[in-house]
């Protein structure tokens, strides 16, 4: 909300100073010396209006605040001028009085202009039609009446309310050359009703022909203004002439007074209710409550003090004090009532809107589907900002607006009159668009509120998207786990079959052979070669058994580490495989999980090379650097199109699942005819593998008591036992001078 600071800083001090001057001067002057110069009007009329106007300026950017404050300040300055003239009658004779009089005339004009504009643009200072805006600009002509009379009239024109009768005061500033313009100024100044008439014309045109919503807002004020005008006209034109002195005249006078008093009431009600829309913005709530309480307290103080002040001349001081005290007590409940009334007037249905918007946040948090989030959001914004329609669209994958999901409240028609992007960091996620407001226009504060809501919405949308991503990841994780289990089962079945159909059968054959040999021995027909044959069979069986065990888990991996295991594996590979492993990685032992996955990667990748690639040679490179172990298997085979390898189509998926299980990454580079490169990168630093630290903590020797284990922070970084801390440069150079070992085809 943009407080009209310049107006506040100008009008506030001027009005305050003027009123202070009035109260101080008049309060200490014998009222009988200055006819008509009592405190009644300044205290009951000007002060409340001024306070109201200034308060409005602090809480709303609505233009109506300026009009009210301007009118009240004009009145205050007018009162001050009047007071000054009456207490310094000698200035009437001064040669510069004509200039001083300009203050009175201008203050008068501004007061009239302020109040006229307030009524004409009631209740929020905004007009629907262009002609109305143009017409009302003419009201400002009133400002020039003072200077115009100064330059043209030969006599000083005194403000009417000053009530000073006497010989005309000559105006030394009149320019003779301009005397021809006198009739024009006369016409303006003499026909005072032109400007009020203009304002009334605008007002009534809006009352009768404005948009329906506007007409509803203006109804009370329209009735009040009409009643006041009719009552006044009857009183002036009929009651005081034809029924003078009769009860009809008295009744008419009272009626007129009531209708006139109803005007400011209707005005303040309307302004609070419909005009000052900015009032009630959530973050301004406290200011509004505080300042409206101050306003009521001021009214209260005025109401309590006024009778005492007004009657001070006729009562004993003690009686005046007592009266004030009694009033203070009696009016106390009225003050509470007023506070409640103002609160409901100020917040009214906007309070409801605010609640809606506040609840929106909570409602968004409960939504899990994007559709639902957007729909709730659209309806929340629509209700909260009273929009005819709201549409929320998200940016699709192609950068344009996605067709779904979309959140819509109301029926989208025409162009959006307001909108707000949903922006997360620098990326635009989507946009909230608003159709026209049901009543009036969106205030600045409402648009700012929309901004806040948009931020909330962005978070909600991002959350839902994150949730979706998480769900997808979970799904992938589950699938991957399932694949691992399936692969494990397949592996078990393979081993079972190897045992049953391979080794067990070999032994059965061996048994049959032995039995046969015994029979032949019994008959003395056994030849030594038969036993040699059986021996070969037994040896073969042993070799098979060893190979099978190696397939389940190569003992060499546990005993001698990754490089040894890989070399042992590749030694019987059908095509030449070059192993590149630096001294560091050769000595290094890793987590058993990591070693197994790395070994498995090599095994699967080489199996693929043998099965599919038609390669003539392959290279396995093992590096350990910066807490990561990288395993690279390249071949010079036919390659393949990685995008065409489906799940389970190759060992690649198996590798990916295993690698993912230890938080590693897999990169496959391959092209038809261009060979294949499989790169697996595995974290070896303990803290990057969740659960590792826990394992370390759990393996604290029993001697370290539970208490000691608790007081000792869980080690988050446990150095690998066989990990010499090699400086980075050394590691680099080690990587460069990697010795090569070459495995050949199985002999």
């Amino acid at each position, binding site marked *: 909300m943009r407080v009209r600071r310049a107006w506040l800083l100008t009008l506030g001090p001027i009005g305050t100073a003027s009123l202070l001057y009035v109260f101080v001067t008049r309060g200490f002057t014998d009222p009988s010396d200055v006819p008509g110069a009592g405190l009644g009007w300044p205290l009951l009329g000007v002060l409340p209006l001024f306070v109201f106007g200034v308060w409005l300026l602090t809480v709303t950017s609505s233009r109506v605040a300026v009009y009210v404050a301007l009118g009240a300040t004009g009145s205050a300055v007018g009162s001050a001028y009047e007071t000054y003239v009456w207490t310094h009658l000698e200035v009437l004779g001064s040669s510069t009085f004509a200039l001083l009089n300009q203050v009175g005339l201008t203050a008068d004009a501004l007061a009239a202009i302020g109040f006229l504009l307030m009524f004409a643009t009631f209740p929020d200072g905004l007009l629907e039609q262009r002609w109305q805006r143009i017409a009302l600009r003419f009201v400002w002509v009133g400002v020039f009446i003072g200077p115009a009379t100064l330059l043209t009239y030969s006599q000083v024109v005194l403000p009417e309310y000053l009530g000073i009768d006497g010989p005309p005061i000559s105006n030394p500033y009149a320019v003779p050359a301009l005397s021809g313009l006198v009739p024009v100024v006369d016409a303006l100044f003499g026909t005072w009703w032109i400007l009020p008439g203009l304002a009334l014309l605008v007002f009534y045109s809006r009352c009768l022909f404005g948009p329906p919503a506007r007409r509803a807002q203006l109804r009370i004020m329209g009735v009040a203004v009409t009643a006041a005008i009719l009552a006044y006209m009857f009183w002036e034109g009929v009651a005081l002439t034809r029924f003078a002195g009769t009860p009809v005249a008295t009744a008419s006078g009272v009626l007129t007074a009531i209708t006139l008093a109803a005007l400011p009431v209707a005005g303040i009600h309307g302004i609070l209710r419909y005009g000052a829309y900015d009032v009630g913005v959530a973050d301004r709530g406290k200011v509004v409550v505080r300042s409206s309480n101050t306003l009521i307290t001021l009214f209260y103080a005025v109401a309590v003090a006024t009778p005492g002040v007004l009657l001070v001349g006729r009562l004993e001081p003690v009686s005046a004090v007592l009266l004030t005290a009694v009033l203070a007590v009696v009016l106390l409940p009225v003050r509470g009532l007023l506070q409640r009334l103002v609160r409901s007037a100020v917040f009214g249905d906007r309070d409801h809107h605010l609640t809606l918007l506040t609840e929106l946040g909570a409602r968004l948090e409960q939504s899990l589907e994007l559709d639902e989030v957007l729909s709730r959001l659209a309806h929340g914004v629509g209700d909260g900002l009273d929009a005819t329609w709201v549409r929320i669209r998200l940016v699709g994958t192609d950068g344009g607006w996605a067709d779904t999901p979309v959140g819509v409240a109301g029926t989208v028609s025409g162009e959006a009159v307001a909108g707000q992007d949903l922006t997360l960091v620098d990326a635009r996620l989507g946009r909230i668009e608003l159709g026209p407001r049901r009543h009036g226009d969106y205030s600045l504060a409402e648009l700012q509120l929309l901004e806040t809501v948009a931020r909330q919405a962005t978070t909600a949308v991002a959350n839902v998207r994150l949730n979706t991503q998480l769900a997808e990841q979970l799904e992938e994780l589950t699938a991957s786990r399932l694949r691992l289990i399936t692969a494990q089962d397949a592996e078990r079945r393979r081993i079972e*079959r190897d045992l*049953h*159909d391979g080794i*067990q*059968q*070999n032994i*059965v*054959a*061996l*048994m*049959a*052979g*032995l*039995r*046969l040999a015994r*029979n*032949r021995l019994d008959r003395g027909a056994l030849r030594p070669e038969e036993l040699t044959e059986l021996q070969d*069979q037994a040896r073969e069986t042993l070799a098979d058994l060893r190979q099978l065990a190696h397939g389940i888990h190569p003992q060499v991996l546990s005993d001698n580490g990754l490089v040894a295991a890989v070399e042992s594996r590749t030694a019987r590979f059908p095509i030449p495989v070059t192993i590149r492993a630096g001294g560091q990685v050769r000595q290094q032992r890793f987590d058993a999980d990591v070693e197994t996955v790395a070994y498995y990667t090599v095994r699967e990748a080489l199996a693929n090379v043998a099965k599919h690639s038609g390669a003539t040679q392959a290279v396995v490179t093992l590096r350990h650097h910066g807490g990561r172990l990288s395993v690279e298997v390249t071949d010079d085979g036919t390659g393949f199109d990685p995008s065409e390898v489906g799940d389970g189509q190759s060992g690649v998926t198996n590798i990916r699942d295993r690698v993912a299980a230890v938080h590693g990454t897999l990169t496959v580079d391959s092209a038809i005819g261009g060979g294949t490169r499989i790169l697996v990168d595995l974290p070896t630093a303990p803290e990057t593998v969740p659960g590792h630290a826990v394992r370390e903590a759990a393996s604290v020797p029993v001697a370290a008591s539970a208490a000691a284990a608790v007081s000792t922070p869980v080690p988050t970084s446990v150095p690998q036992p066989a990990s010499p801390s090699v400086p980075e440069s050394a590691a680099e150079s080690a990587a460069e001078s990697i010795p090569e070992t070459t495995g050949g085809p199985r002999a």
Partner: protein
Amino acid sequence: MPDQLRIVIAEDNYLVREGLRRLLEDSGEVDVLACVGTATELLDAVRRLGPDAVLTDIRMPPTHRMEGIEAAHAIRASHPDTGVVVLSQHTDESYALALFEGGSAGIGYLLKDRVGDLEDLVHALHEVCSGGSVVDPQIVDALVRRRSRGSASPLAALSPRELDVLREMALGRTNAGIERALHLSSSTVEKHVNAIFTKLGLSEAPVHRRVVAVLAFLENAPGLEQPG
């Protein structure tokens, strides 16, 4: 020998197949008509050669699961005069039960461990050839253990000695065979057999039906009527 058993061997492992052939031929009691590697070839050979008995592996290509059992059922259905001995590496009794599902006459189930015991192997072939049944002692052990574990089982009522006799009965032995195997007098064996039949609710049955009775009882829930 004129009454040599004419058999066909089905076994996918070359070494085992050749070992079995040489061993059985060496016994002098068996004439191996053909050696085949799959169930399909086996059925074909049976059709062509009409052997007295078949010795078949349980696992064979293409699925390496229970081809031998399926072949046994097919052979028993199409050639009732051909006995089938299934050689298996499964000590799990469910395979044996699957084999005996449709009846036990002329069928034997032996573990490959028996390969070294040439006499048992030849005896089993003879037995199935004459319509009898043979179940490997290890399988019978497993069946009896499983059946007698539940307290509700009537087998729980048998004494250890009676269980031994029942096991021998399951192997298709006659009373005289059981006497020899368990070193018992004929009256003792007869007493045990009667006690077993009484305790299991079976009256005395013909000798060649005894294994059927035992197996039927083992396969199915108690309360079975006396086969008859």
